[in-house]
C-alpha cells in the first residue's frame, strides 16, 4: 500500500484550514464534501494513479495543479488548487479553494493566490495540516 499524504494550507493569522473555511463560505453540500473526502482518502491510500482525473496531469500555473470534484446539476463545481510536495515527493498540499463556472475559475486570481500560499508554505513548513475535511462532531 502506498503512503501518500494530503495536507491543507493554513491561512491567515489564525491559521485556519483554507479548505474548511472555503467549504463553509461556499456552503458546499454534505454530499460534495463526502465525495471530496473519498477522493482524498483514495489518493492517500493508493496514490494519484488510482484516482485518474482527480488532479490535472499538467499544471494550470507554475507548480500549481487543479483538483476536480464534479458536482451534479445545481451543485458547485469544486476546483481547489494544489501543489505536489513541496517537502516530499509522495505528498500533495491543497493551497486554496476555487469553483468553476462557465469555464472560468472563481476567484479569478486563484492561481496567483495558490502560488503566494505555496511561497509562504515553503518559508514556513508548519503552515499546513493533515486532517479530515469535516471536523469531528463534539460529543
Amino acid at each position, binding site marked *: 500500500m502506498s503512503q501518500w499524504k494530503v495536507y491543507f494550507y493554513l491561512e491567515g493569522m489564525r491559521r485556519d484550514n483554507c479548505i474548511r473555511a472555503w467549504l463553509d463560505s461556499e456552503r458546499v453540500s454534505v454530499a460534495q464534501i*463526502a465525495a471530496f473526502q473519498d477522493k482524498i482518502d483514495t489518493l492517500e*491510500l493508493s496514490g494519484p*494513479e488510482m*484516482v485518474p482525473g482527480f488532479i490535472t496531469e499538467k499544471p494550470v500555473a507554475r507548480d500549481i495543479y487543479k483538483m476536480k470534484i*464534479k458536482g451534479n446539476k445545481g451543485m458547485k463545481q469544486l476546483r481547489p488548487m494544489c501543489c505536489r510536495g513541496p517537502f516530499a515527493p509522495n505528498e500533495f498540499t491543497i493551497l486554496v479553494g476555487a469553483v468553476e463556472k462557465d469555464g472560468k475559475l472563481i476567484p479569478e486570481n486563484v492561481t496567483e493566490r495558490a502560488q503566494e500560499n505555496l511561497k509562504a508554505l515553503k518559508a514556513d513548513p508548519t503552515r499546513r495540516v493533515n486532517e479530515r475535511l469535516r471536523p*469531528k462532531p463534539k460529543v
Partner: protein
Amino acid sequence: MSDLDQNLKSEFQDSQYRYAYAESFLNTKLATQIKTLREQRKETQAAVAARMGIKQPGYRRFEDVNHSVWRTDTLWAVAKALGVRLNISFETFGSLLDDKKRFTKEELERPEFKDDPVFKEAEKPQAEEIAVMAPAPMVPAPRLGDLMAAVVQNNEELRKAVSMDFSPILAALESQEASWRTVLTETETFAPVNTWLGKLPGNEWILQGNAWTQFADAFASLPSIASIHNPYPETKEGTMAATSYTPASNEAVESAIPRREIAAVRAPVTFIDQHKAKKRPPQKRYQVWRGISRRKHG
C-alpha cells in the same frame, strides 16, 4: 483499527454523507478499473474506443473519477471491449472499508477471456482425450529411471526447491534394470530422494517407502506420458498413502501389470483408503436392475 476506519465509522453515521462517499468511491473504482484494464492490455484509449464504436474523447470520460452517470449497457460495452464480464452487486457499508484498503492496481487487474486461467486449464484434457483416442504408439515403454529423470529435469519447481546434485541418483536409476521391484526395494538409492522430497512443502511429496506413489502425479504431468496406471489395484495393498505398505507384492504387481501399459493405459491414479473401501455398500444398483429386468420378462 486504522485512523481511516475510525474516521469513517464516525462520519458514516450521517446517512447523506455515507451514500455520497460510497457513490464517489464506486465512480472512482469504475474509472480506475477501466483505466487499469486498458493499461494491462497495453492499449490506447483510441483502440478501446474504436472497439466500442465511439471516439476517443467520448471514451476518455470513462477513465475519469468524476464521471458519475453510468448506464448498464455502456458498462457492458466497456466490458466487451476489454474482454471481461460485468458484475453488479449490492454491498454493506462495512465492506467499503476493506474495499478501500484493497484498492490497488493488482487487485483491479483481470485477464481477458483468452488468458483466463480457468478456460486455459479446461483446454488441456481435451487435447489429452484426443491423444488417448488415437491408437497407442508402438514405442517401447519408458523405464522408470527415465521417467524419474524426466520429472526431475522438467519440474522447475522441484529443481528450485532444493539445491542438490541429482546426477548420482539419476545415474543409479539409469544403470538399473527398470523394474518396479528394483526401484521400490532400492531404499538406499531413494534415500537421498526421500530427503530431498521431504524438504518440499506439502506432505504429498514426502516419500514414505513407496517411490511410485509419490511420483505418480509428477509422471502423469509429463507431456510424453498419456497416463499412469495404478499398479496397485483396489486391494488391501491399494492403500497407497499408507506407510505400512511393504513391497512384498512387487512381483505380483509386475506380473499383473504389463509394463507397456504404463505409457498407454489411461486411468486415474486412485488412492483408496483401506478402511473406507471395506465399508462400501454392496452393488445395489445392479441388483435393482436385475429385479426390473426379471419382472419385465416375467
